[in-house]
């Protein structure tokens, strides 16, 4: 019985999210039966894939015990880049996609350099770089615009029967990036480093490289999210990514990823992202005006963060909490 409870505790985040998703979809279907059609499923998937990708990126960094506040700006940057330079020909599309992924890795590497090698506190470092990246996207594209060829847009946002291509993209990202990384030594290093940086360092784990790799992975996920957003909106917008910074954090925390590092998986943040996106989607269907959107987003965030805080309070004594250095 006790073991059962312990194992339940480990999976409580993803489990609650799954139950939440089912509940919200039922509410949605009651108000809007069309949601269960092929088109409805595709639009729900399209609405949540960006956040799911951002959440995965945030999770990698969270598992090292750090945090990435520049994810939103990274998404905007890739989005603006893709919308500005993606021509119509297949060659240019492939080139721009590859370049976008490289940009994601590069901006992640900058974050990693500053945090892991420069030893600046992760929060402050990524907060600062987020302004640099936002500035670059604003310089690249002062007004929203640009163009995305239909072929690319349809490739990512279309659907094949009940199966939306966006869900396939997410699956592909998990299969090609997440699973190989977390089946490898790097994945174990990331978790070990997040769990206890000192002992990870003492046991000879190359902690700086691990920290750097985590930010680069986050950048890669952000780049995929930015490309998907470009396909979804068929344009570039320098402020489109802003909402994903905090929401990715909320999705990860909802999915049971610990803000203190060393714990988390990929299922939790994905389910958390789907839950959050559908909730925000349902609101407009139920007839709540768009003015409430920020308020409800903020409310969910506060609730999630508050609950995580209470869990932390119960798990650790007041003394150890105060003794830990905060940034």
């Amino acid at each position, binding site marked *: 019985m006790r073991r059962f409870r312990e194992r339940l505790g480990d999976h409580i985040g993803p489990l609650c999210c799954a139950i939440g998703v089912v509940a919200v979809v039922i509410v949605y279907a009651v108000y809007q039966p069309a949601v269960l059609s092929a088109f409805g499923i595709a639009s729900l998937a399209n609405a949540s894939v960006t956040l799911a990708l951002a959440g995965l990126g945030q999770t990698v960094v969270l598992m090292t015990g750090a945090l990435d506040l520049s994810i939103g700006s990274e998404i905007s940057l890739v989005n603006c880049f893709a919308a500005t330079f993606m021509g119509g020909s297949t060659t240019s599309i492939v080139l721009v996609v590859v370049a976008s992924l490289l940009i994601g890795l590069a901006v992640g590497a900058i974050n990693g350099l500053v945090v892991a090698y420069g030893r600046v506190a992760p929060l402050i470092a990524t907060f*600062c770089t*987020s*302004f*640099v990246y936002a*500035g670059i996207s*604003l*310089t690249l594209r002062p007004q929203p615009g640009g163009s995305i060829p239909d072929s690319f847009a349809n490739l990512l946002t279309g659907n094949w029967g009940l199966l939306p291509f966006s869900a396939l993209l997410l699956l592909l990202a998990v299969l090609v990036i997440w699973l190989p990384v977390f089946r490898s030594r790097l994945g174990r290093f990331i978790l070990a480093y997040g769990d206890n940086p000192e002992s990870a360092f003492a046991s000879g784990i190359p902690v700086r490289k691990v920290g750097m790799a985590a930010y680069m992975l986050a950048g890669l996920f952000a780049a995929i999210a930015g490309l998907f957003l470009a396909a979804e909106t068929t344009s570039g917008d320098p402020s489109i990514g802003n909402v994903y910074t905090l929401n990715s954090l909320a999705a990860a925390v909802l999915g049971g990823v610990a803000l203190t590092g060393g714990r988390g998986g990929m299922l939790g943040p994905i389910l958390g992202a789907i839950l959050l996106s559908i909730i925000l989607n349902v609101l407009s269907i139920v007839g709540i005006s768009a003015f409430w959107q920020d308020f409800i987003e903020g409310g969910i965030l506060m609730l999630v963060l508050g609950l995580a805080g209470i869990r932390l309070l119960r798990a650790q004594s007041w003394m150890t909490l105060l003794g830990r250095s905060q940034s």
Partner: protein
Amino acid sequence: MSAATEAQPGRAGPRLSASIKRAALPWLILAVVYALCVIASADFLTWHTIRLQLIQAAFIGLVAIGETLAILIGHIDLSIPWTITLTGMFATNLYAAHPHEWVAFGAAIGIGVAVGLVNMLGVYVLRVNSLIWTLSINLMLQGITLIYTNAAAPTTVVPPAAKFLALGMVGDIPMAAVLWAVCAIIVIGALRFTPFGRAVYALGSNELVALLSGVRLARTYAAVFITSGVMAALVGLLLSGYSSQAYLGMGDDYLLPPVAAVVIGGSRLAGGEGGYGGSIAGAMTVILLEAMLITLNVSQGEREIVFGAILLALAFLFLGRRRR
């Protein structure tokens, strides 16, 4: 502002020369930036231009009071932008309905205290990271403002007192600068000579030790975040007086600059070291930098890059290092 204001309680002695350096650096940076401004445009030598910049700097400087306190205790307050906007909209609307000065100022202080208490609840009671929590509160306040205004047209009825504080002149000196000077003296005095100041530095250096030495943590947290909220709310009222109206997004420029002002002012981002004296120089530096970049026709995007990079460089060079 001499070096003495920057010396930290209990830290004189062998570290005195270091703290003098730390105190002098912000003013050196200010001098360099001002020289660059003058090179960019001779207008910066006229009192008229300086006066305009001084008013802008006063707004940043007033907000930086709360930000300095928050950073000194090792936290940060990013809920300022929408506290400013919400206060601007709410207080002016309330004033339009009930034309008494005290109504507007009372509403502003009320909003400031409420925001401060909610921030303190998350950061102290729930122990959520302050950067994340206050950003969420900022989002929440944005939502509340949007719901409250319901996309209505901005009000142009502004309490005369707010207008006077923002635009008025005492002789040749702007009223905003006088207000700033008074507040600065109070804050510097409080940090240096009162138990509250010692509690702030103790809390920022090591929270556990502060608790064990009998510092009243809850009270200090509350005082810091409420001060920050009230200063932001006050600036919201002053800003609506400055532009004779309150509008959505009026606080948007107050996310990064106050933090930049404090960091340029030599306070350590991890807390426990620094003071408000430097932040004064920091606020002026930030405003002059912005003015210079605008004079040089640098686009908004490039300005953001410059500010982000400067802040990052400062954090990297000597201020925000992690103690590992």
